[in-house]
């Protein structure tokens, strides 16, 4: 198997994770992963080997998702069809408290507005730099940062992390 193929297969778990954050439905996530891979394979010559395939694929996926939203003319996800993240962890070592905290965290992420969920997923979960996220989303870095900051404050306040501190007085305007 070629390097390109190997890498794409190895990225499947992360692709699916990002697809879930976008679509919040396991079936749609699977379809989105397949569409993304199909587009990427068709556009293989546009991938510069040695560069980050994950960023390349995330960008393709994000654009594919936006196309789908436009085509369906749905400004937001239909709440009724929202099945949410599947949480199927290998729980052997985790305590109940940890599992509860993680589950709650995941729920909080799901409930963020789409634009905040997107940046928080790409920066804090996919661990991409602000610059990479700016390139993938086409947003200015300042916008990435302000959305990220707001999202984290929201999550902190919902989960009771540094409660006094999560009420901000020193926010930059967007």
């Amino acid at each position, binding site marked *: 198997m070629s390097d390109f193929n190997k890498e794409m297969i190895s990225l499947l*778990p992360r692709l699916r994770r990002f697809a879930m954050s976008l679509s919040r439905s396991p079936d749609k996530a699977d379809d989105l992963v397949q569409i993304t891979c199909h587009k990427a394979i068709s556009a293989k010559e546009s991938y510069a080997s040695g560069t980050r395939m994950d960023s390349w694929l995330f960008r393709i996926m994000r654009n594919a998702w936006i196309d789908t939203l436009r085509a369906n003319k749905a400004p937001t996800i239909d709440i009724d069809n929202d099945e949410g993240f599947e949480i199927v962890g290998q729980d052997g070592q985790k305590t109940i408290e940890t599992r509860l905290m993680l589950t709650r*965290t995941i729920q909080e992420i799901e409930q963020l507005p789409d634009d905040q969920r997107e940046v928080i997923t790409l920066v804090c979960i996919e661990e991409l730099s602000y610059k990479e996220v700016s390139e993938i989303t086409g947003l200015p870095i300042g916008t990435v940062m302000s959305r990220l900051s707001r999202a984290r404050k929201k999550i902190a306040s919902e989960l009771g992390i540094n409660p006094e501190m999560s009420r901000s007085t*020193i926010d930059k305007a967007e």
Partner: protein
Amino acid sequence: MAQKIDDEKLMAFADGELNDKQMLEVENALNKDPVLAERMGMYLETGKLLKEAGDYLLETPVPDVLRKNVEQMLTDAESLENAAKPHGFRLTTARQEESIKLPIAANSNWYPAIAASIALIVGSLIGYGVAGIDTSSDSEQLQIADFGQLPITNALYTVPSGEELDLGENGERFRAIASYNNQSGALCREFELDKADKSTFVSVACHKDMGWRLTFTVAAMSQSDDGYAPASSLEALDSYLDAVGIDNALSLEAETEALNKIK
């Protein structure tokens, strides 16, 4: 007096996004101001928590079907690439539609939206930028416009394999070679098109959605031009047919029957 450090700078510090000079500036400020340190701590903690949540999510196994489908797409693409490798002829264009299937559940309720985007992908002609292959010359390309013309379409519906038909316009001649069923059960026909400028195209078209789609074409250069033997173009064709899983040629009876069904 140092500038007040705003939340986003604290966040960038927590995320390791600052340069050395900026990091030092923030560190100094944090050492002097416990309130600031707590604000930064919120970003640090949420960052850690979100990473942990992400790791937890990553434990969800990828469904087998999804994995298999992606592996299949990669394999299909490789087969097509291998079929396109130079055999001493000029490969012009090929559509990947028949080769790289996109397995979306047909009853997916957002399928119509996806179909639109699939059409964009498979509808684009892919020229193989393989070294030494020149896809730039218009006169050597079988334009899709040619193919959309009625005479060729009619010929595909009517000319039995082994026979030929003058298409009348510009001295073109259609020669039906063989018919096959592809993996989706669609009827595919191999044919040659001789053009007035003495170029010949060996092609495969498959019948789908009430029409014929060109799925493979190779220009067979004549001997005098570049010294390539026309027969070598058939190797590429064979590779293509193998790659897309087209089986043995249909008998004349089977072909007539199949053509009658789709007319």
